[in-house]
């Protein structure tokens, strides 16, 4: 007990050091565990599903090019289900856009149609009622629904008698049979689930590639084993359906990797954050180790005296141990507080639009194991370095150490070398982090600003999805789109009006495969694909897309006339490398049908998706000739955009009072929301980078403080020998320069490699960015120089007599 008190007193004797150590713990552990919790929420435990580790999802590729997880046909699924032995069970899911009417305002929600075994398959927890029964996924029996807890509480005020009530979905009656827990759904943002209305014909659909397959692996079966079996089954399907299936392959991916996004980006970014946070933790550990080393080596004489009066090595080591433990445990405790605080901060940062795709987000809590691991690491670094240093200094011959102070000025070069190396290591990591973070921020800004020249802040947007039942045929849809377009054009202040099936940069897209008429028809997998945009004529001027050849679509390209399209220059170059594409005809494959269409113009290529690094070949078709169920509207105004959003909403209601819309934003807000994830990642990276810099500078500062303290008598002696303050400054500065300089060099090399890697991964990042960022890294050098200068100035400011009396 007494020893603990002594240890505490010794720690308190250097309050600055103590604070630096505790700060390192606080930031290092806090940040790390908070990021780890985010990783849990997004990738590692994104859902509360029984046996989540055994759930897998099928990802489809065509000739090695990723098509995604929604690319399996019903007939293929049935064949998988009957032949695959690696899975306990397999289920099928299809997105289902749902409009809820009655019991409140019309509301658009995301829904899923699934096989009847869905909730058992994925191990969902139902709060009330039941999942689907066998046979309910047959047409005629399918009018049942499971709703999410969120929808239940929002729309039905958590009414207890919900089971058995009916709900009106897409203007048909469904019986609610159950309520599923918010964090126990897959896909995690679905609010309504209903069985697929299967028919015998449905089971025959071989190339309706619109479904997603989820399977539960048998215990002990790996993804690779399952994939091998699947590949064999796939080969047999391909041999029978060459025309449509040639080149298609399927991979078995862990389900948790596809919860927060349909591609691997979320997982990639989370892992990147984890690595970055791990770096920050390492920097913190180096700090703690450094402080301990400095503390202990500063006491070499004291230990020698203890040895001289007969103390063994153990009591000395024990003293240091107690001290280290005290510091570390205090630090770990602070770290726990830090992680709670950090996590709260982060939770509040993410906008709702984003965390709806991360079901666990609102329930994120500090991961105990992560705290423990991080704390153990930091405590370990402190204790081990402290005790080792104590052991080493107590091993030194007691007499030697005692006389060292009296006989000569010790530069203690070996220990300083090691501490210098630790600092260099910190600096290197910090610079790598800083450059990485800088690149991420640049990438995010470049992506968000990509359409700035199109002035998206002056465009009102929203999306409507027309229910199939109400709009079963072309006439009805045409009526809707024509009236809506006219209604929007009549709005005061509307300068340009466009309807489009999917708005670029809104994280949606559909593609179409096509063939050039007059050439031999390639096999399915070899057919070129293009982004499929269906637009009204004013789209091009609204989106500021310049014409290259021919003409834009016009109001004369109406339903019933010759089907026409405009292509972008990428498609033109790829398909008509030397000829003029205007006047050529394409055959478009749309699901099971095909349509011809004549190219009337070529326009400039433009980005569609920020995750992609460049535009993709695009086909623009006339909205009037292809009226869609998905209708997004865009209205450019010179007046206030908020008012235009509201006016446009009313224009939709004027056409169909039951039609809900979603994402009522200015176009700029829409882009920012879509890229919110990227922005958050960039923000987190920036935060980690900032913490790393703080920690690294703390490291430089504390080591330099010790160096100055240790060399005080030497400094006094040199002054007495006629050295000028300038000489002393050179001496200390040189030491700091070697220390930080080598670290910075290492960091710049690492940063250069990171820049190469990122530039191939993230849009808007070029490897040239490294050069401008590296000059930013020099800023860290400047801060490090300041961290050196402050203690050095103390040494210079003191009268030589003080330095001389120091021994």
């Amino acid at each position, binding site marked *: 007990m007494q020893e603990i008190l002594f240890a505490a007193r010794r720690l308190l004797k250097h309050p600055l050091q103590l604070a630096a150590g505790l700060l390192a713990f606080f930031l290092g552990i806090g940040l790390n565990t908070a990021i780890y919790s985010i990783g849990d929420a997004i990738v590692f435990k994104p859902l509360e599903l029984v046996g989540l580790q055994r759930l897998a999802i099928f990802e489809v590729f065509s000739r090695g090019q990723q098509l995604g997880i929604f690319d399996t046909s019903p007939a293929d699924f049935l064949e998988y289900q009957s032949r695959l032995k690696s899975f306990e069970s397999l289920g099928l899911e299809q997105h289902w856009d749902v409009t809820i009417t009655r019991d409140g305002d019309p509301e658009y929600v995301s829904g899923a149609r699934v096989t009847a075994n869905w909730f058992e398959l994925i191990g969902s927890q139902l709060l009330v009622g039941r999942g689907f029964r066998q046979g309910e996924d047959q047409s005629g029996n399918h009018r049942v629904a499971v709703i999410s807890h969120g929808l239940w509480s929002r729309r039905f005020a958590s009414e207890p008698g919900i089971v058995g009530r009916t709900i009106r979905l897409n203007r048909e009656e469904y019986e609610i049979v159950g309520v599923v827990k918010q964090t126990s759904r897959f896909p995690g943002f679905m609010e309504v689930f209903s069985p697929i209305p299967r028919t015998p014909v449905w089971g025959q659909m071989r190339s309706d590639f619109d479904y997603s397959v989820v399977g539960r692996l048998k215990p002990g079966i790996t993804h690779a084993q399952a994939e091998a079996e699947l590949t064999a089954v796939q080969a047999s399907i391909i041999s029978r359906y060459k025309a449509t299936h040639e080149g298609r392959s399927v991979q078995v991916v862990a389900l948790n990797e596809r919860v927060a996004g349909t591609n691997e980006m979320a997982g990639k970014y989370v892992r990147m954050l984890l690595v970055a946070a791990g770096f920050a933790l390492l920097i913190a550990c180096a700090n703690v180790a450094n402080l301990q080393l400095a503390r202990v080596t500063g006491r070499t004489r004291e230990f020698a005296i203890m040895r001289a009066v007969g103390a063994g090595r153990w009591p000395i080591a024990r003293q240091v141990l107690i001290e280290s433990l005290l510091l570390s445990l205090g630090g770990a405790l602070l770290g726990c507080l830090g992680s709670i605080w950090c996590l709260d901060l982060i939770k509040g940062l993410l906008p709702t639009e984003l965390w709806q795709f991360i079901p666990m987000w609102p329930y994120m809590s500090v991961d105990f194991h992560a705290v423990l691991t991080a704390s153990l690491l930091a405590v370990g670094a402190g204790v081990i370095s402290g005790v080792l240093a104590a052991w080493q200094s107590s091993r030194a011959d007691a007499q030697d150490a005692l006389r060292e102070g009296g*006989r000569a000025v010790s530069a203690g070069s070996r220990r300083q070398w090691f501490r210098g190396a630790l600092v260099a290591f910190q600096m290197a990591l910090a610079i790598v982090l800083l450059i990485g973070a800088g690149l991420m921020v640049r990438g995010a800004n470049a992506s968000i600003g990509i359409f700035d020249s199109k002035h998206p802040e002056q465009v009102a947007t929203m999306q409507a999805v027309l229910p199939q039942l109400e709009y079963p045929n072309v006439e009805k849809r045409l009526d809707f789109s024509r009236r809506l377009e006219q209604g929007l054009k009549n709005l005061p202040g509307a300068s340009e009006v466009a309807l489009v099936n999917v708005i670029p940069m809104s994280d949606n897209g559909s593609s179409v495969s096509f063939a050039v008429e007059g050439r031999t028809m390639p096999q399915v997998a070899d057919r070129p694909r293009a982004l499929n945009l269906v637009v009204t004529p004013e789209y091009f001027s609204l989106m500021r897309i310049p014409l290259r050849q021919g003409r834009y679509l016009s109001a004369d390209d109406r339903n019933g006339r010759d089907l026409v399209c405009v292509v972008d220059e990428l498609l033109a170059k790829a398909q008509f490398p030397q000829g003029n594409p205007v006047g050529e005809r394409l055959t478009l494959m749309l699901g099971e049908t095909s349509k011809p269409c004549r190219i009337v113009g070529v326009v400039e290529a433009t980005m569609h998706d920020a995750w992609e690094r460049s535009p993709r070949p695009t086909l623009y078709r006339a909205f009037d000739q292809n009226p869609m169920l998905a209708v997004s509207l865009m209205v450019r105004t010179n007046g206030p955009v908020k008012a235009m959003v509201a006016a446009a909403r009313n224009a939709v209601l004027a056409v169909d009072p039951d039609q809900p819309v979603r994402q009522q934003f200015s176009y700029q807000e829409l882009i920012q929301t879509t890229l919110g994830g990227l922005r958050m990642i960039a923000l987190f990276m920036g935060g980690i980078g900032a913490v790393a810099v703080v920690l690294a500078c703390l490291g430089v500062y504390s080591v330099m403080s010790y160096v100055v303290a240790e060399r005080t008598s030497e400094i006094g002696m040199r002054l007495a020998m006629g050295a000028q303050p300038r000489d002393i400054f050179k001496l200390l500065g040189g030491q700091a320069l070697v220390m930080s300089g080598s670290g910075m060099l290492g960091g710049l090399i690492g940063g250069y490699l990171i820049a190469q890697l990122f530039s191939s991964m993230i849009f808007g990042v070029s490897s040239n960015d490294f050069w401008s960022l590296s000059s930013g890294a020099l800023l860290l050098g400047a801060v490090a120089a300041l961290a050196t200068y402050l203690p050095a100035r103390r040494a210079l400011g003191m009268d030589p007599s003080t330095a*001389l009396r120091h021994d």
Partner: protein
Amino acid sequence: MIELRNLEKFYQHGPSKSFVLRRVNVEIKEGEFVSIMGPSGAGKSTLLYVIGMHDGDWTGEYYLMGQPVHKMNRKERNELYKQNFGFVFQSYHLLDNLTVAENIEMPLTYRNIKKQEREAIVADTLDRFQMVGKKDLFPNQLSGGQQQLVGIARAMVASPKVILADEPTGNLHTSQGKEIMEMFKKLNEAGTTIIQVSHSDLNATYGNRVIEIRDGWIEK
């Protein structure tokens, strides 16, 4: 050569001043060998540091060869110090990662002397102190007396007019101390002014004058 008039030094302890040097009037002529003596805590080291301009925080007048030190700034004092003083420490203060020759050379590196010239001076000094054979040894390979000889050689290498020494024999045996004192005597006879702080009456006999100091007051 050195003239202190009404020199005072105090430390402020809250509201009260505690004087370390009180109305000190001292005159030391060129070529003298002065011993400053007195009980522990009397202010001997302080007086030495003031003379050596390592301590700038005092009041009164200080003339060095007629020049008013009390009117100089830190930079001018540094320059003056460099030209005129060498310093010997009780605990030698050699750098243990430098050889004997390098330790001796160190003050010259602060005096704008070319490498070649420095080497010549160091060789001369080693010769004078009869340490040529030990020039490549490190301080921890020498005895205490030998280390202090290196300390004196280092203080002498830049040919100062005055050597200040704070208890130069304090860490040494009597026989080793004798050796050091003989060396000082030799240097003094060659014209160097020597001011040493000493506790031992025996050492004081090597000098030609004793300044007694007690509680900051000069006794005689």
